[in-house]
């Protein structure tokens, strides 16, 4: 978002030209600048304040604005983690103060660069101040003791100084933990992060011009240093101790000391002369040494170029002797090994094996070449990337037999397997092989009596066939189509045979009944639909059910109703007969007409709406129930009634006013009259008495 967007938006919203809008916006910000430059604060409502402090403008947003910006973290409050005791609090304060001071020192040191560059690496920021202050004292102590520092020691000299300062601080218990932590961290850094390399890198940079005070300090470091002399053979001569300190050092020398004192020149161990010689002989190339000394700008040429010239003759002789001895030993060992092998015959056997292996390998390659034919045509075929040559007939039979045993469950005896057909040379690819396999399988199936189908058929013959649902339906349909056979009724056991009725008589009766029933066409239809087993029972139930229905009907209509009894009892006649007229008794008829009296509107009046009828009905109800309600009566008569609410509220209003209660009004009048009479009587009596 920028001013351009602002101008566009305002010009669109307020229908002003963009130039006018830009001018106005510019004027707004110009006025703000003018007021600020005049030294006044600005307060813009619902936006914020522009406050001047030390000729610098700061903006404090309004509450609404700040809340809108800090929407994601709104409602978070400060949490009290822990409360300090007085001692703890003071310790903490002291620690914070010192840290602040050290930070200030560090910042000052950064500006100087030349001194603190070294100090920052070796010392923590907290202790740095103390080192700077105590430096002079330490050095003063060192001078009378005349301690001589070698160049490698000089590098760690600063660290030692630091240690001294740490020891002093150890008395303060508050800092013990911090110092220990720092020391552990520093040690880890020194070990893991190649602390020395960092120092080296810093040393490589050209030293900056030093201040007079620093020069004095540097003199203290440099006073005992002497340029190291290099002996041929990579060994460096030990620097002899200087008895008297050097007062002044030239700048050139100083530079050399700064650099040379911090180079890592490894002194070789001088155990014996022979060892040195062996080292020299093993590493005669002096090319590696300059790589190490590249760090030092000018004094890197530690390794001399004319080393062999300085070697004495006696050493040369000894080396020659050693070399000769070594060569002799090697030759002897080689000879011994060769002889051993020749004796054991390992060398000859190995050669033979190799020849055999090569021959076998060649054979294998030839076989593979025979089996596979890689041509351009075959390569084009997607199906056959690698076309194997057709196998021999014997192998093929075996494979097929194996496949058959897998596919068909029956184990095919070898005698039954026919001879395979002659192999087609035109077979190519996997699909062709499959086709061929299918063909072979078919041929085998034809020839062999044991097939999968035959195996399945055997099982089918054994298992009895159950009738399916379709067959069952067909059977039932046939049974229904058949004419009804003569039914021989079965007499139930509970019908006891009496001497009057023999068993034959009962049977005859039953037969007659059944015949009668069968003659009925309705029964015939019913009979065809029902099952054989439940025929008799169902018919009986049906008949009895019909009888019951008739009886019920008779009972309902009552005995008073003279109903013509139907001649035929059959169902069909009942159904076919015309519907009978309802015969209603006179008493019931009158009641019915009373209830169902139609409300006809009076002649000449319009048909009223439902609402009007409802209101009238309600009014009538009011009128009927509260016969003394004059208001509703009047309203009804006048036709002021409009809705139920009107009626209700009017009625209640009348109630309150006392219009509704006629009787109460009359009682009051009477009571009033009585009271009037009584008072009048009293007054007359009193007048008579006084008079």
């Amino acid at each position, binding site marked *: *978002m920028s001013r351009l967007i602002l101008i566009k938006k305002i010009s669109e919203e307020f229908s002003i030209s963009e130039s006018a809008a830009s001018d106005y916006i510019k004027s707004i910000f110009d*006025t703000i600048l003018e007021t600020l430059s005049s*030294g006044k604060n600005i307060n813009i409502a619902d936006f914020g304040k522009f406050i001047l402090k030390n000729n610098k403008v700061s903006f404090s947003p309004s509450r609404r604005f700040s809340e809108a910006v800090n*929407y994601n973290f709104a409602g978070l409050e400060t949490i009290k*983690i822990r409360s300090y005791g007085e001692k703890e609090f003071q310790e903490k304060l002291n620690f914070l103060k010192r840290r602040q001071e050290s930070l200030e020192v560090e910042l000052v040191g950064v500006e100087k660069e030349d001194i603190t560059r070294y100090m920052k690496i070796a010392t923590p920021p907290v202790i740095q101040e103390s080192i700077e202050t105590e430096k002079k004292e330490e050095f003063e102590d060192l001078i009378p003791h005349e301690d001589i520092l070698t160049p490698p020691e000089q590098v760690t000299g600063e660290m030692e100084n630091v240690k001294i300062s740490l020891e002093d601080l150890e008395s303060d218990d508050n800092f013990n933990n911090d110092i220990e932590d720092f020391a552990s961290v520093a040690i880890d850094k020194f070990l893991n992060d190649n602390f020395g390399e960092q120092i080296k890198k810093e040393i490589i940079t050209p030293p900056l011009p030093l201040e007079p005070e620093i020069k004095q300090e540097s003199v203290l470091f440099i006073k005992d240093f002497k340029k190291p002399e290099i002996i041929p053979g990579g060994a460096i001569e030990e620097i002899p101790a200087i008895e008297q300190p050097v007062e002044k050092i030239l700048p050139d020398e100083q530079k050399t000391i700064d650099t040379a004192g911090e180079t890592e020149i490894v002194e070789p161990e001088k155990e014996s002369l022979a060892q040195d010689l062996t080292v020299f002989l093993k590493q005669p190339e002096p090319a590696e040494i300059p790589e190490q000394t590249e760090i030092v700008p000018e004094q890197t040429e530690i390794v001399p170029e004319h080393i062999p010239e300085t070697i004495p003759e006696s050493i040369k002789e000894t080396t020659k002797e050693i070399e000769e001895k070594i060569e002799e030993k090697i030759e002897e060992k080689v000879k011994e090994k060769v002889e051993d092998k020749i004796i054991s015959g390992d060398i000859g056997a190995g050669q033979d094996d190799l020849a055999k292996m090569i021959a076998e390998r060649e054979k294998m390659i030839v076989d593979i070449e025979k089996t596979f034919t890689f041509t351009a045509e075959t390569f084009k075929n997607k199906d056959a990337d690698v076309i194997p040559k057709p196998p021999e007939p014997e192998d093929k039979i075996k494979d097929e037999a194996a496949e058959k045993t897998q596919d068909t469950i029956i184990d095919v005896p070898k005698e039954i397997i026919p001879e395979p057909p002659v192999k087609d040379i035109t077979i190519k690819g996997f699909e062709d092989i499959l086709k061929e396999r299918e063909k072979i399988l078919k041929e085998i199936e034809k020839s062999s009596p044991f097939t999968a189908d035959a195996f399945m058929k055997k099982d089918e013959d054994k298992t009895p066939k159950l009738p399916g649902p379709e067959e069952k339906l067909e059977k039932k349909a046939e049974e229904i189509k058949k004419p009804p056979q003569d039914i021989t009724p079965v007499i139930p056991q509970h019908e006891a045979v009496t001497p009057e009725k023999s068993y034959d008589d009962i049977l005859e009766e039953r037969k007659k009944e059944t015949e009668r029933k069968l003659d009925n066409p309705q029964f015939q239809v019913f009979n065809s639909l029902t099952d054989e087993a439940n025929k008799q029972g169902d018919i009986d139930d049906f008949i009895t059910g019909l009888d019951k229905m008739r009886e019920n009907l008779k009972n309902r209509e009552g005995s008073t109703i003279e109903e013509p009894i139907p001649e035929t009892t059959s169902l069909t006649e009942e159904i076919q007969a015309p519907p009978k007229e309802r015969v209603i008794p006179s008493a019931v008829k009158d009641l019915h007409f009373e209830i169902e009296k139609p409300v006809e509107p009076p002649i000449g009046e319009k048909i009223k709406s439902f609402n009007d009828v409802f209101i009238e009905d309600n009014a009538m109800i009011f009128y009927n129930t509260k016969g003394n309600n004059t208001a509703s009566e009047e309203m009804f008569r006048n036709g002021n009634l409009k809705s139920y609410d009107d009626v209700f509220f009017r009625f209640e209003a009348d109630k309150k006013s006392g219009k509704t209660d006629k009787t109460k009004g009359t009682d009051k009048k009477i009571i009033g009259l009585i009271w009037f009479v009584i008072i009048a009587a009293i007054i007359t009596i009193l007048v008579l008495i006084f008079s």
Partner: protein
Amino acid sequence: MNTKNLIKKSVAKNSIQRGKGALIFNRVFEIIHQGVTEDNGFYVENFGKFEVEHREMKTEIDFKSKSEILIPPKDKVKFTPLFLLKKK
């Protein structure tokens, strides 16, 4: 200085009516407000830059209660002026 005085001064330089000028003035700072909240910043040429600065959670010592306090994170509005005020 209040908004009223600012509007007066700004309108006096232009030919825009006072009422309309007030509306535009309010709208200008509304747009800036909107820009800062939605886009985390608004840049006005030759004037300044409004930015949203995130201050992370930190611990501080309260000297009054002598206790350590955890201050929650916060998004603040930061204004960096692009003008130099003349020294008196």
